[in-house]
């Protein structure tokens, strides 16, 4: 048992942090947001040069074949910089999902290009009104000649506008010859398709989200795809999608911890500097205890970000899900608490666009709900923990 990063992990983290400190100061990020730029391809190229885009790509596809712990170190370091680039969506989640299909030629080719930083892919899965239910997919894939025709609507697909390829989940109709509906249950019948964004019929309704990231609703209007653009067998995609989202959730937890540390540090500095009633406001016990609560939340969240990373690839899906849900509960609640308290303790200044505080707060607000908020994961955890784990060492 140990909780230290390896030398390799530390080097990666330090290199990325040094690059971002130099190339991505808060002013540049804010200028990009104010100019309504989706992302900064220069920054993306710089990150690719450090190996970030190759991190989760298997070695046989030209990647570094690293795992969740390297991703943890990376995301923790990137957190405070509030990257607008599709690190999580492309370099972690889409890469992990494609990794499940690396035997298929189109997936392998895409992974190669993604490792080099030349291509961006994101997963388009959730749909309007589904809230956090991964099973609520109504997008249809119907046979069309030798291939497929996709019709449907995907909601809040982060970085869809920056992506070259969308990884789209869709249901195939059950039928005598179609395996699509064969596996019973809500997740049955879900297949995964590789959809180049430039394909006719793909229409994006683009916007910015509250945290300054770009997103889009993706409308699929009779999109024609060749047969080899379905990844894996018919109706079998859900386990791989869930596994990729769980890895993404682990990465998100690490990003949140990086941001929470930055917010805590900034708040402590503010309490030392800000004078009222003839003394630094950090002398007041009501505020000191708030800081102590923030520290406690942060350390508990950091612990769970480690658990999420170490269980993110666990071969037993229930063990993986249980750990990830537990982590998300703690990290979501810590994100909300620390974000809200940081704004509160900064007083009026916390409400302004001028300080990074409000930007960190908004990103944490988004992180809280991404992939399911604390309530959803508490329910998922409770359902998975119904059996009594007597004398179990929880970790």
């Amino acid at each position, binding site marked *: *048992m140990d909780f230290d990063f390896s030398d390799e992990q530390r080097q990666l983290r330090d290199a990325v942090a040094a690059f971002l400190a130099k190339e991505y100061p808060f002013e540049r990020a804010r200028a990009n947001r104010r100019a309504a730029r989706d992302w900064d391809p220069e920054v993306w190229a710089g990150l690719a040069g450090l190996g970030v885009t190759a991190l989760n790509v298997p070695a046989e596809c030209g990647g570094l074949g690293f795992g969740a712990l390297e991703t943890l170190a990376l995301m923790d370091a990137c957190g405070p910089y509030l990257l607008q680039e599709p690190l999580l969506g492309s370099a972690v989640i889409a890469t992990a999902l494609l990794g499940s299909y690396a035997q298929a030629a189109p997936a392998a080719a895409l992974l190669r290009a993604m490792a080099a930083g030349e291509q961006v892919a994101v997963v388009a899965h959730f749909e309007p009104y589904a809230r956090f239910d991964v099973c609520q997919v109504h997008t249809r894939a119907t046979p069309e000649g030798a291939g497929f025709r996709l019709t449907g609507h995907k909601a809040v697909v982060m970085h869809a506008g920056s992506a070259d390829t969308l990884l789209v989940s869709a249901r195939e109709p059950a039928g005598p010859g179609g395996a699509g509906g064969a596996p019973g249950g809500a997740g049955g019948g879900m297949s995964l398709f590789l959809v180049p964004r430039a394909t006719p019929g793909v229409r994006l309704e683009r916007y910015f989200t509250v945290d300054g990231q770009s997103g889009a609703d993706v409308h699929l209007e009779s999109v024609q795809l060749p047969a080899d653009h379905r990844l894996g067998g018919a109706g079998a995609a859900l386990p791989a999608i869930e596994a990729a989202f769980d890895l993404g959730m682990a990465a998100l937890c690490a990003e949140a911890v990086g941001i929470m540390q930055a917010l805590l540090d900034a708040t*402590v500095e503010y309490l030392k500097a800000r004078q009222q009633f003839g003394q630094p406001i950090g002398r007041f016990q009501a505020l*000191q205890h708030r800081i*102590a609560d923030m520290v406690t939340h942060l350390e*508990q969240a950091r612990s769970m970000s*480690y658990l999420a990373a170490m269980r993110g690839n666990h071969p037993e899906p229930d063990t993986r899900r249980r750990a990830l849900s537990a982590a998300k509960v703690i990290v979501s609640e810590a994100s909300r608490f620390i974000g809200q308290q940081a704004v509160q303790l900064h007083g009026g200044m916390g409400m302004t666009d001028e300080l990074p505080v409000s930007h960190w707060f908004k990103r944490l607000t988004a992180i809280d709900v991404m992939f399911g908020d604390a309530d959803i994961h508490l329910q998922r955890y*409770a359902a998975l923990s119904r059996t009594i784990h007597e004398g179990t060492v929880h970790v």
Partner: protein
Amino acid sequence: MQLEFTAAERSFREEVRAFLEARLPAKIRDKVRDGRELARADHVLWQRILHERGWGATAWPVKFGGAGWSPVQEYIFEEESALAGAPRQIPFGVKMVAPVLMAYGSAAQQERFLPDIRSGAAWWCQGYSEPGAGSDLASLRTRAERDGDAYVVNGQKTWNTLGQYADWMFCLVRTDTQAKPQSGISFLLIDMKTPGVSVRPIRLLDGGHEVNEIWFENVRVPLENLVGEENRGWTYAKFLLGHERTNIAGIGIAKRELTRLKRAAAAPRGEGRPLLDDPLFAARVARVEIELQALEITNLRVLCAARGEHGAGPQASILKIKGTEIQQAISELLMRAAGADALPLRGEAGTNVMPGYLNQRKLSIFGGTNEIQKNIIAKTMGL
């Protein structure tokens, strides 16, 4: 980074488990699992059994007759002990006064006191808090004045835990009334049978007798029972408080009580469905289980970072705050699971969860209140 214990640590866990299975008396185990009060004889018997196995003082260095265990071994032992239903070792001797004696006591004191602490032959208690000195411990007023070959002690201690059983007390007394509060305190070892020592029980909200007032009336304590230097007692007390907090997360105890809670909530209720089928109650249970899981990792992180050091600092305070909050939350859920059946006081049937709930309120008060712990965290953040 990895979560798994080493092979050596895993086989150590098996060894501890086998020992507990073979040697923990069923009578004691059942009392612990039901949350019933243990008698003095139960504690003494268990300490003797541990001592026979060479585990009477596991964290002590070998040269003092300890087992010289690492913090990780200690952690595993305490967790397994708690899960098995073994009594929590009474800390005042083995974990509190002994480390002070080893660090600051004379060779004669070490020789005289340590063996009986390890074997359980001597029961120790703590004389710290006073009616006017709780969180502000340095304002204590119990006086010790030199008179020939002895100190003469006068004053009053309170919140003294299980002093009714004690043979000895380690006690903070004021030896200099002119100096700053922290600089005039000394660390004395007092034989509880000395004339002038009286122990008066404080009846608590759960009906139990766990704490006492101790009165000192011209109690003569030989000069040789001073630990370290006169007026340096505050330093030793602070050293000791660090030790107290590293054991306070109570992960093993919380796991045992959580299992008890889940069992109670999963039990059939006549015609009705088990309580755990109620989504709201199930969520409350899941919530505390997740918090406990996070704290366990935080605790293991602290163990690994400490590399054998018993450090205080913000981590110890985090462990104390969260550990006590979790234990209190579990005791509250146990009470709520019982519904109105929690209300009748039917003696020590072992099924009544109310005394446990009431008693656990102490956790956030003793060992430095949780509010004091927050002050400490803020201080380490530079505020």
